[in-house]
């Protein structure tokens, strides 16, 4: 039970990497605050996490005998994000870690000059500014506690570029910049900020994951064969599992990674090593 007594906020917790991470953290004994928009966004062309999915994640976490609070909230709303943190502090007395996992993969699939202003904005607003808002909301609390760990879920798209994917790539690159800068801001207070860069993560039906097929669409990869095609680019000859990403998150939120801050942990089966 290495996370016993810790309180962790996970955004985008309804499904996918968010659900996998939340459950793994719960199994390690952490109390959880699960955040998801639990609704659709008009500009996003696919269905986002639902209340039912969020409730299911909560149920999976509770099975590990930890306390869980579900807080539906849109990370584009600063006030809502601050309320989540305030609620967490009221209920649990502290916030030990935040996993900024909320992210959207579309609207994408267009070259730069074809992207509309609000398409560009919504991508950055969720994928980059959302993490900034949450960091802003917990930073003071963690600094006062003299302890804390913020984990930003970036992507291999934060390390290299992809065609027709500029907004996502920009946001994910920016997220790494935010990670490093915030790490320096908070280092004197023993609060750490790190990023995880997942590569091609398989959409696990149990986790109700969706991201990879949406990315396939944006990258013009036929969805029926997208897994096979992505695998060919993997030196390990297999896709990454969401659980693998969750393990990196587990390490970074805990005391075992005490000496690690401002760094990037890449979980991509060797994709960017080429």
């Amino acid at each position, binding site marked *: *039970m*290495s996370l*016993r*007594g810790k309180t962790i906020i996970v955004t985008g917790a309804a499904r996918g990497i968010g659900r996998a991470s939340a459950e793994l953290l719960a199994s390690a004994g952490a*109390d959880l605050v699960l955040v998801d928009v639990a609704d659709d966004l008009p500009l996003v062309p696919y269905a986002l996490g639902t209340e039912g999915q969020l409730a299911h994640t909560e149920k999976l976490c509770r099975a590990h*005998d930890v*306390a869980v609070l579900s807080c539906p909230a849109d990370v584009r709303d600063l006030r809502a994000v*601050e*309320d989540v943190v*305030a609620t967490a*502090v*009221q*209920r*649990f*007395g*502290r916030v030990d870690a935040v996993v900024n996992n909320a992210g959207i993969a579309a609207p994408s699939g267009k070259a730069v000059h074809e992207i509309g202003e609000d398409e560009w904005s919504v991508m950055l607003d969720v994928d980059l500014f959302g993490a900034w808002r949450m960091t802003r909301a917990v930073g003071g609390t963690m600094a*006062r*506690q*003299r*302890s804390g760990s913020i984990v930003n879920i970036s992507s291999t798209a934060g390390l290299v570029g992809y065609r027709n994917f500029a907004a996502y790539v920009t946001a994910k690159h920016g997220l790494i910049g935010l990670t490093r800068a915030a790490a320096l801001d908070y280092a004197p207070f023993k609060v750490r900020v790190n990023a995880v860069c997942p590569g091609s993560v398989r959409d696990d039906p149990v986790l109700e994951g969706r991201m990879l097929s949406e990315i396939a669409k944006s990258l013009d990869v036929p969805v029926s064969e997208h897994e096979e095609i992505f695998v060919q680019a993997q030196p390990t000859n297999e896709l990454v599992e969401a659980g693998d990403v969750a393990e990196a998150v587990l390490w970074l939120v805990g*005391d075992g990674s005490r000496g690690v801050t401002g760094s990037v942990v890449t979980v991509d089966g060797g994709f960017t090593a080429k």
Partner: protein
Amino acid sequence: MPAVLTAYESYDALSPTERSKPLDHHAIVLSGGPRADPEVLAERLRDVVAGCPVVRQGAEEPGKVWLEQVPHRSDDPRAVRTLHRELLRPVPLYGPAPVRLVVLRCEDGDQLVFTAARGCLDRASLTSVARAVAGGPDSSPRRLWWDLPVAGPGDGEGEAADAGADGGGPDCRAAHRFTVPTTPDTPPSRAARLAAVAYTAMRYLDRTDVTVGVVRRRHRSAAVLGAAEEAVPLTLTVTGADTTGELLARARTALDGLARPADDRQEAWGGQEPGTPRITVAFDEESPGSGHEVSYFPGTWPGAPLVVHWFGDEAVCLFDESRHGRELVEQYCRHLTAVLGQLLEQPPATPVDRLRLLDDDEEAAIRELADGGPLDAEPRCVHRSFEEVAAAQPDAVAVSHKRETLTYRQLDARANRFAHALRSLGVEHGDRVGVCMERSTDLVVVLLAVLKSGAAYVPMDVGYPVERLAYTAKDAALRLVIGPEKASDPGIPSVRTVSVADLALRAEPEPDIPVIDRTDPGQPAYVIYTSGTTGHPKGVVVPHRNVTALIEATRSDFAFSARDVWSQFHSVAFDFSVWEIWGCLLTGGRLVLVPYFSARSPESFLELLVSEKVTVLNQTPSAFSELARLCRPGAAGGADTAPAHGTVSVRLLIFGGEALDPRVLRPCLDADGWSQCRFVNMFGITETTVHVTAQTVTRTEILHGDRSVGRPVPGWSVSVRDSRGRLLPQGVRGEIHVGGAGVALGYLDRPELTGERFLDDPVTGGRTYRSGDGGRLLPDGRIEHMGRLDNQVKIRGYRIETDEVRAVLLEDPALSDAVVIPGRDQAGGLRLDAYLIFREDAATAYGTAEVRERAAKVLPPYMLPSTWTPLSEMPRTINGKLDVGELPAPRPAMPGNARPAEEESATGEQSGLLAQVCSTWSEVFGFTVGPDHDFFGIGGNSLLATRLSAVFREKGLPPLQTRDLYRNPTPRAIAAVLER
């Protein structure tokens, strides 16, 4: 409800990192009442906290009530775990409301958990709030007043992280629960519980008084809300003559006094009186009525090193694990429980001395732990043992000195002839013969001869001053002294002296067969004089059987054999030589006497070790540190002085005579030759025949600076006792007593002193010797040696171990050695003087001031030496130990590069007033003070400041206010102020 207290098990299961953020909150749990509607509770909570003066911000809801569904009965382990987790959850450091209410809805009812910060709401207040919110027949809606302001957001920033501000490390909280005996009808009284806590502490600390903080509340009315608890210090004094009844009465009186306000009350939690043990006691409050069952969870009370919180027949001890080891605390609780039981059972007229901390089983276990085990050795006489070895290997070389050698046969024969000669000189069985000779093979012959003649030898060092030799001769009533070679030496007045040359002449015609001798192994073999720190030297009388027992006890562990070559380095007057000589000769080895000058030059000594292929080397740590310097690459300095010898063959290096700080061995770890050597640290005393314990020192001990002296050798035993001779529990510091086969017969002609130091052990029937050394017993039976009891100094109430300060100084990479001794300043107060030896390769810019600066980062101010004097080498006595009398006058810390000339000019010509101020300061401090020396930098403190003012007055100087001194802390600055 015991479930509340079992939460501590869950707390202890947290990692030390988590526990270093202690719980400064506590909680009240109400259960057994009717199921409550959370909305109603929330409204009541809002009402209660409405009057609380706290700054709110944002969307925080002051009266929020959290509801958790727990799908189990409340006694189900899963429900209990959930309750524990709630109890261990902190309240936010700042927050909208001072109380958090979580309703755990179990299958069989609600548990209402009210949590608050201890610094905001004390126990009584929290209970009042809980009652007011939970409702029920007893809670009238009375006004609740707030006493202390509650911290708002932004207050207390970082304070939780800085807990442990005493200068110790971070506070790491732990908890230990224990139960106490109860008489059938009533729980033990508060007085009894307080008395048990205090008395047990007194025994652990070996004191007759102890101050315990007892928690009480400033306000009587529970309607006043706030943090009004404080720990009032109560002092209990108990001497051996008192009875348990008197102890209880005093505890009762002290507790009664709690109700009255104290006039000069010391601070609650934070107050630190040096030397005062910080134990705090709290008693559970009664919480009658209200239709609910009320349980209290005290959290961990950070800031107080040890808290005993009583709950009826259960108690919880909350302590800082970084300060007090868990095993020790558990043991302490066990002992205080035993004491409490005895206080309750035994009649009031029972003398307090009859209270036992340790029961028979525990005592037996402790004794066994520190027992070296049985020694299967027949008592023998030293010379008989030698004769057997000689018979077995007559042609092996026994002893050599420069080019002279003697085989075993030759040594035996010559000693026999000398023994006859001694007899012819009138030496009789049971006499004492002084041996005061230069080092030579004949020295060993004479020692052996004296033993063979049935007498005991009294070794005297030729280097001693004549008065000392005369004193020894007289005190020991020597029949005669075998004196140095040269017949022209004046000899020792008032005793017959025969030069060894004369003795040899007399021996020539004598037969080389043994003298008829009826010496019993229990009779004296030698008398060695030791000086204590006070008084005249006294002779320790050691019988034959002790020496042979020591050899037998160590023979197999050290694998002594005829192939070994031993060095004989130490003065014959130092009992280490007994070990060198007889350890070698009774195991068939070859003894190499180290010539006088080789012993004084590390390079020549090293050459000797190599050329003679010495395998067993015995050294004092001071002496070895010289050799160790030669282990460093490049230390020989220059190609032409580089020793072209080979590597040492030493397989066994035994340290004795002084405490060893294993870090001096660091250079040897990988050095040629030494890396194959086994290092052994042996603690020993002359009065128990050279050695008591042995500890092999490996890389681990060297790297950690582990000063354990190990376990007793077979046949020897050790116990740690308090000043009254009572056995102390394991882990508790006391005086080391030694028993077993090595205990000497006593002090020659000093029956009183012998009676004081050599005690009869009622349990084993044997004798033990009080060593005057402090130490404690570790769980694995090893002894941790904690320095001479008189190396402990009390400076301004602080108890300081000079060895500890020395250890810190030794960590400075610029120093190769250091010593710390107590000194006195002119105000009559004690201070610490540090003497330092800088390494040759240390930067010249790094002076004593820099050493001081570095040490000041580690040592608390009261442990920082006041003076810092550099030396080129440590003055040593004949025995190789530090010669305190030869240390130069102490000096204040100076930065590097300050040449003596500069120092002089710094204190040279000055204006009249400045000169007077400097000289006054110099008088008070006891060393020359320059015009720019900083008062605190040279060891000034409030006592010296007062003294300084007084001396100023005496000399008719303008008056010196202490605050002026503190603001202008140099003589120059003071002079400037006074001139105005």
